[in-house]
Each structure stands twice: as C-alpha cells, then as structure tokens.
C-alpha cells in the first residue's frame, strides 16, 4: 500500500485501523474528540491516542440518551460507542470542550462500558497566569491518572520524546498544507482531508514514516504540476464531517487551499518547546498560544483577525464556513467572523451540515453560484 492509499484506507475505516493495531500489538488505545486532548501525554504513557469523528451510519441507540438538538458529532460518537464499533478502545479522554461534549462525557462514562474514563477539565480561559497554572495542574493530574490506570510511570523523558514525535508530525502537516496552497493541482480534492484524518488516528511513528515518504514523492513531481487557474478557497469551522464538499467544490471550479478547522490547520499550529525542563508547561504553552477554539476564551477578536490574516496570507478568493448544526460555540462566532471577512472584502458562504449531508446537487448549485460570483 502506498502512503496515499494508506491515508485513504485509514480515513475510510478508522475503527478498522484501531482494531488492527489492537490485534497486532495488544497496545492500549484511548479515544478523544477534541484537539485539546493532550496526545503527547497519552503517547508518552505508551498508549495510542485515536481521534473519534462520530459515526457515518444511522443513529438509533444514541437517541435514547441524547435529544435531537444535540450535534451529530456527539450523537454519532455515542452511537459508535454503544454499538460496539469502538470495541478496540480501552477508554476515552474528555478534555473540557463545550456544553454537549461535557454531558457526553457523563453519558459515555455511565453507559459505554469501557475500562477507563478520563476527564481532563482544562481551563476555558486561556489568557491568564492562573489559567496557565491550572492547566499545568490538570495535565499533571492527568499523567498521574494514566499512570494509575495503566501501571506505567510517565517520565519527563517519555513526554519529551512524545513532544518531538508530534512536533515532527506537525511540521510535516504544515509542509503538506504549504505545498497544497502553492500547487493545489498536485492533490486530489480530498487528499489532504484523508491525510489529516490519518494523522489523528494512526500510530504516530508509522504516520510520520508515511507522511515523510508521501512528501518526498509528491515533492519531486511538484515542478510538473500545472497551475490550475481555479478559484482559491479556505474552509472555516470545527470539523469537516462531510468531505464530499471538497469534490463538489472541485466540480464547482475551486480548490480548497487552506482551512481554519479543528481537524485541519488548528491541529498542527504551534510547536512545543523540545527538551524543556518542565515538559507539561511546554505542552500547556502551545494550547495557550495557538489559535483558539471558540469554546475557549482568549482575546475576543483573535479568531476574526486570525481568519482574515490566514485568508490574506494564502491569497484566497473566498471562505466557506462549514457549520455543524447545533454547534453553539461556532454558531455564536459566525456573525462576527463574517463581519470581519466583509470588512476585509473577502466573500464568504455559510453551509450548515446536519447528520446527513445535504443533497449533492443542491449543494453543488450553491457552491457553483458562490464560486462564479468570486
């Protein structure tokens, strides 16, 4: 399997990947839903952190626990757990995220039946000294809980090694994004989405090998890539659970060249100081300084400025907001983010994504209209 094929296969069946790791190595695996899950610490404990994206199938079992006005990520995640689709997990870690994930943690703990459950109640506020200290305390407490649960001591050296591994991964992902922005024609429309999914699911060392080989190979052909002359777009939102949007945008005559997604650029933003005396503080400092999730609080216009800056830096013609229905933090920020884009004369389009993707043709027409207008 080529690296590109592997990324695609992991994207198609992340649970299948997790199950094969479990079967082949017997390794402990912890699931997580949020980019504030401290993967470095989990990895340092010898555990594979594996991101969960919610089910792609019908939701039935989760309906007895969650109302219809709860987002599809939370309902779909619970559905997978209750159906046994995540039977390869030893448990999950819930960093404090939003009101819905907060309750999902309770419901999961009470019903999903995994051996382990962790709540890392990180601060919501990220811009004060006391919040920084509290975050370090929570990370430290989480390490102690992992040690107790899995009977393995986590040394600073383990954390530093994990930090280096994830820094490498972030660096390579950044390189992928830079290359795509420069030569979008080199990539299939969804290729980067597959890569990002694989980055959050695969064993880090294995992913690093694959992504490095992928970059070497694609980099060598970069010179031949045609300039597409197509419109350049950026996606904004939380997670993209509807990758068809990449193909539809391609059909509409545009390339996605950048994003401000939790499962996209926000995932690899910021590096962690390596060989720090206090590696937990180093992990915390990345969370405190990288661009903020709307469920967290930093500067009240930081996200708007960040979006406009990224759009300008990448020279995009427009921004498409992918708004997961019932995602409050993102929905609250949308009017102000749009206002910031309007002031910078960057056109934008809002697409609301429900459990089921909107009918392809209807969405295509909207995207075509938007792209034509640019």
């Amino acid at each position, binding site marked *: 399997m080529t690296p590109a094929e592997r990324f695609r296969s992991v994207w198609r069946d992340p649970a299948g990947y997790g199950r094969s790791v479990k079967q082949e190595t017997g390794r402990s695996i912890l699931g997580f839903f949020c980019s504030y899950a401290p993967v470095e610490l989990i990895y340092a404990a010898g555990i594979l952190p594996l991101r969960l994206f919610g089910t792609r199938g019908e939701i039935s079992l989760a309906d*007895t*626990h*969650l*109302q219809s*006005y*709860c987002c599809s990520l*939370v309902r779909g995640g619970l559905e997978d757990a209750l159906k046994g689709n995540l039977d390869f997990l030893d448990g999950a870690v819930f960093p*404090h995220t*939003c*009101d*819905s994930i*907060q*309750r*999902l*943690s*309770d*419901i999961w*703990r*009470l*019903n999903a039946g995994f051996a382990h459950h962790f*709540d890392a*109640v990180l*601060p*919501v*506020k990220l811009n*004060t000294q*006391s*919040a920084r*200290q*509290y975050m370090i*305390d*929570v990370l430290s*407490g989480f390490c102690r809980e992992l040690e107790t649960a899995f009977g393995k001591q986590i040394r600073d050296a383990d954390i530093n090694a994990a930090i280096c591994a994830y820094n490498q991964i972030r660096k390579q992902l950044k390189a992928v994004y830079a290359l795509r922005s420069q030569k979008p024609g080199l990539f299939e429309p969804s290729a980067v989405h597959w890569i990002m999914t694989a980055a959050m699911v695969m064993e880090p060392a294995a992913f690093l090998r694959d992504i490095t080989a992928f970059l070497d190979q694609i980099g060598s052909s970069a010179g031949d890539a045609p300039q597409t002359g197509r419109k350049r777009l950026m996606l904004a939102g939380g997670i993209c659970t509807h990758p068809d949007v990449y193909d539809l945008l391609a059909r509409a005559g545009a390339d996605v060249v950048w994003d401000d997604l939790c499962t996209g650029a926000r995932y690899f933003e910021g590096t962690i100081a390596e060989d720090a005396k206090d590696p937990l503080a180093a992990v915390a400092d990345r969370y405190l300084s990288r661009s903020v999730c*709307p*469920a967290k*609080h930093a500067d*009240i*216009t930081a996200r708007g400025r960040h979006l406009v800056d990224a759009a300008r830096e990448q020279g995009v013609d427009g921004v498409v907001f992918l*708004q997961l*229905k*019932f995602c*409050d*933090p993102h*929905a*609250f*920020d*949308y*009017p*102000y983010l*749009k206002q910031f884009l309007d002031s910078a004369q960057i056109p934008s389009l809002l697409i*609301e994504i429900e459990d089921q993707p909107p009918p392809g043709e209807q969405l295509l027409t909207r995207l075509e209209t938007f792209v034509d207008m640019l």
Partner: protein
Amino acid sequence: MADNQKKHDPAKKAPKIQAVSRMKEIMTNYYIDAKTAREQGKKVAWITSGGPVEPLIAMDVIPVYPENHGAMIGASKMGAQLCEKAEEMGYSRDLCSYARADIADSVEKTGPIGGLPEPDMLVCCNNICGTVLKWYETAARYFNVPLFILDTPFVHREFSDSARKYVLSQIYEYIGFLETHCGTKMDYDRMEEVGRLSVEGTGLWQAVLDTCAHRPAPMTAFDAFFHLALIVTLRGTQTAVDYYRQLHDELNQRIANGVSMVPDEKYRLLWDNLPVWYKTRWLSEKFAAHDAALVADTYTSAWSGMLPDMNGQTFLEAMAETYTKVYINISIDMMFDIVANMIEKYHVDGMVMHSNRSCKPYSLGQYDLRQMIMDRLGVPTLIIEADMVDERAFSESQIDTRIDAFMETLKS
C-alpha cells in the same frame, strides 16, 4: 379536555400571595435605578445569573442580568419576534433563546423595558453554561467594554484542589478587575457584610422553597419562578433578606390557615429545567386542573444550592466552591443525588422534565437522569420538548395530550 379533568373554577382559586405587589415594587425600583445609573454616577455591570454578584454589591456597582431580561422577554411573549431578529443578524435558530433575544434587543431596544441599561463592564461566570461565554464575548465586542470571565471548572466527579486554587485566585482577579474599572478599592469589611446578607438571603430563599414540603403546598414552582427574581438580582442586599422574610412569614401563615395554591392538591410534581416563560400560566392551570401541584423544581433551588459551607472560611473563600458546584455544573450522577433528595423531601409523586432546546448543559443528560429516577426510585417522569423563550418551539396540543396521558398513569 379529559372527562375527569376539572373545568377551571375561578371561585375555587387560592388567595393570591400578598408579597407579589411588594416584589413588583422592588423590581420596578431596581430597574429604574439601573436605567438611571449614569445620572447617579454609578456603574452598571452585566452579570450571568449564576455569577458571584456579591463583590459588585460591595463595590456599589449595579448588577444587571441579561438572563432575567430574557425571562421577561419570554413572559411578555416577545421571544419569537426578537429571536427572529437575531436570526436575521446571522445567529442560528439553534442557539440559546435568552442570548438571541437579548442580543437582538441590544440593537432593537423594542423589548419589554426598551432595552437593558448599557453595561460599563461585563462579568461572566461559566458555571451555568458555555453559552454565556460566547454571549458575553458578543456583548463585549458590541458595547466595547471590559469583560471578566470567572472560569469554574465542571465537576464530573470531584471538585479538585487545583480547581479550588484556580477559582479562588480568579475571585481575587475579579476584585482587581472591579477596582481597576471602578477606580476605587474594595472595602473588605463591607464585602464580608454583603456576604453575610447573601448567606442570610439564600437561607431564607431555601426556607421559602421548603414551605412546599408541607402537604398541601402553600405555593407552587410557578410562584417560585416569579419570586426567584430577587435572589438572582439582589442577593447580598438587605432588601432581598427583608423580602424573603416577609414572603416566608406569609407562606407559613397560609400553611397555618390551610391555604394551598392548588385547591384540591392530590399529586405532587417536581419540575426540572428552566420555566417555559411564555406558558407558565397555561401550564400552571393545566396541572391544577389535574389536582397536581408542582411543589419543587431543580431550577429555583439552584440558588439555594449556593448556600456556602462557611466552615471557618471567609465569604470569598467559601465562594470558590459554592459557585463551582452549582446544580448544572456537576455530572448527571451528582444531579441524580440532588433530585433524589428533593423527591423525598417534597414527597414527590412524579417528575416533569422540560427538555429545553435552548439549554444544552441542563437538557442533555435528562434522558439518563429520567432512567435513573424511574429505575432507582420508581418515580414516573414526563419529558416535554419546548424552549424557555422561543414560543415557536412549543406545540400546545401535543404537550396538552402528553400531560393528560402522564396524569392518567399517575392516577391509576
């Protein structure tokens, strides 16, 4: 209407609670005071309903509650109209209707009191939800005023020592924030006095709610929804203490005179979640027609849950834990323990849960909570789907039928 359901008989209606007029007077004066703050040279702070108001009172800042305003908008049946306006402004219909209505009214000023007095500063405590964080960020951008966030880590299993340290240090940061923006120093003696009044008022509020443990109950949760206003807005003042003493005396007098709010109280129910503000009268009459009294609720008791365990601490120290462990900042299993206590204390026969589209931290988890209540306590539970302010989310005929069916099972 079902055959065994009574026609509403006004002659049989219980005497009104006399304190109501005093409450209206206090609230009117309070809003006049807040509206004329600038003329009086006073500052106005917007604060969340679960936020620590006591330092504001001690600093002579007038606290204003957008959530109380949201409730007024709902009760005035202006919710849908203002929510629609917010939707035109780009706010999704799925967002909290308090926030939508209030954000729209900040611009439109067409609500029941012509818009809230504009804030000089904002104080947001996220012990009730993550929504207030986003709402207050929106307000901070719109009014261009300083915002203080009091971050109270959610309690899934325990209130950790690191969380205690974090919240306590923020309480002092909060006081520093007020000192900066008021240009005066905190008088810590005054602060403790306000704290003492807050504890006293909160205790009296609990005593008021406790009168409903009496069978028949001298008031219902629908009355509690109304009388709640002072413990939210004027906690820490002598006014609130005096008022709740008066109300408590009156309710005890009603008990002594055998006066109950539901004339032939037979069934005692516990309400969960915020009120359906635009339908309180309809719901009150609906349940009364079944001889059912809502004798307690998890919502108004959340403020008496703020009664701190002083344990030799100063009020400010006690505040850290008290404000972090409020009812909706704790896990479902911890909520169950509180509900189980209430069911016993108020001799509850059944529970009515308002699944409130606007309030995810309160509503998500209700299905599990209901299952625990039915399995472990054998108490039947009804869930009605609605919204606290946006009346477009209320299906009267459907809810009417469901309440009838639920009451039939209780009666059988």
